[in-house]
């Protein structure tokens, strides 16, 4: 279907973003390809250093999955902020990534952890880094004949790992003005051995700060080091402005929230 109709066809999974866009006539696809009944796209598989989720896994199912929460804790932490019960019951993890809203929670987690996205077309499949896949607001590098098939979420094997997710929105469940996610691993002495930090709603795509996070490695994650990292990250943001918040306010939020998730992740890592 996608190969034949190209741009005039769209894949529909949960429809929690696509159908509103169609209702508002922002999109008028001539054909909808419904993947909801494809059971091959509904699975969770744990591999050695990553967890695989099928594109059509409902957000509520992923949220409830304890094995997944133990290995990729950011998924459950982020999903608590995704929409509402009724939308998570229908919305899918793959759909959220393919929709690529710059303020959305799951693309942020995928970007900051360095998840892999598997795309399939009638010609075969290819695997992309989340950073290559997410190209701009509501845009991805998926071709019109490609369907998102599965996502590979990196699993950190470090014993003392902690992660945190937070955001500010007008109301809980609304689009985030700014969202922040962090994951940190420490050794017995509390020294940081691995770090990841990301911000959503702060540019055209979710942002990951690999270099800034790498500077935390080797430190004891003192408040000063965390404040510096949060401040450096906020300087790299390029948020938009709207009725609800100015660019300056969003940048301020980026710094405050980045600091908050880094401190929370540090405390959780130390407790492990």
């Amino acid at each position, binding site marked *: 279907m996608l190969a034949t109709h190209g741009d005039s066809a769209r894949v529909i999974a949960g429809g*929690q973003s696509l159908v509103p866009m169609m*209702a508002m006539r922002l999109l008028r696809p001539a054909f909808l390809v419904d993947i909801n009944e494809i059971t091959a796209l509904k699975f969770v598989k744990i591999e050695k250093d990553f967890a695989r989720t099928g594109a059509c896994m409902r957000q509520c199912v992923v949220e409830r999955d304890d094995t997944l929460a133990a290995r990729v804790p950011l998924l459950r932490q982020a999903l608590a902020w995704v929409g*509402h019960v009724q939308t998570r019951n*229908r919305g899918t993890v793959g759909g959220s990534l393919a929709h690529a809203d710059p303020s959305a929670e799951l693309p942020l987690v995928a970007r900051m952890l360095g998840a892999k996205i598997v795309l399939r077309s009638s010609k075969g499949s290819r695997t992309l880094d989340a950073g290559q896949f997410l190209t701009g607001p509501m845009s991805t590098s998926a071709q019109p004949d490609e369907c998102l098939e599965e996502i590979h979420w990196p699993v950190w094997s470090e014993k003392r790992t902690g992660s945190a997710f937070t955001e500010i929105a007008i109301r809980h469940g609304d689009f985030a003005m700014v969202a922040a996610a962090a994951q940190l691993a420490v050794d017995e002495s509390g020294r940081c051995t691995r770090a990841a930090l990301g911000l959503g709603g702060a540019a055209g795509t979710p942002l990951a700060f690999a270099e800034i996070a790498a500077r935390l490695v080797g430190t004891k994650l003192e408040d000063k080091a965390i404040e510096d990292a949060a401040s450096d990250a906020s300087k790299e943001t390029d948020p938009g402005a709207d009725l609800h918040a100015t660019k300056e306010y969003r940048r301020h939020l980026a710094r405050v929230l980045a600091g908050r998730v880094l401190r929370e992740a540090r405390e959780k890592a130390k407790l492990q």
Partner: protein
Amino acid sequence: MSETLHAVSIEVNGKRREAQVPARLSLVDFLRDELRLTGTHVGCEHGICGACSVMLDGEPVRSCLMYAVQANGHKVTTVEGLGKPDGSMSALQDAFCETHGLQCGYCTPGMLIAAQGLLDVNPHPTEEQIRDAIGGNLCRCTGYQQIVEAVKLAAERMK
């Protein structure tokens, strides 16, 4: 101009309903216009207000964000299906009446579905869990307080 029709078979409130529907007919329009089950309300039609909430296979979803063809082979429960078989109100519905959990009534079917969805999986919710469960449903009359009280009262009675 004739539109292509698709056969659907959906179990609605325990009864199997067969119909021929166009691909782009939303589930809520199917329930209201074809089955005349007008208890489910149409509010924003883009997934914000929650008035159109129904249960799909026992879990609350927004029926304005689904097409009727997507419900083929599934079970749907609307507000009409919440009452007891003899037509009397459920414990939750009674509690809404008693605590004045509604004024104009527009959001009520969606609120009932959301609250029932919560009580089905969590019979003793905290106030925070109740507020979270109805967080996706807009009410412009009550200020939500009496709705929260209604759910609490129903939970207490169902102990």
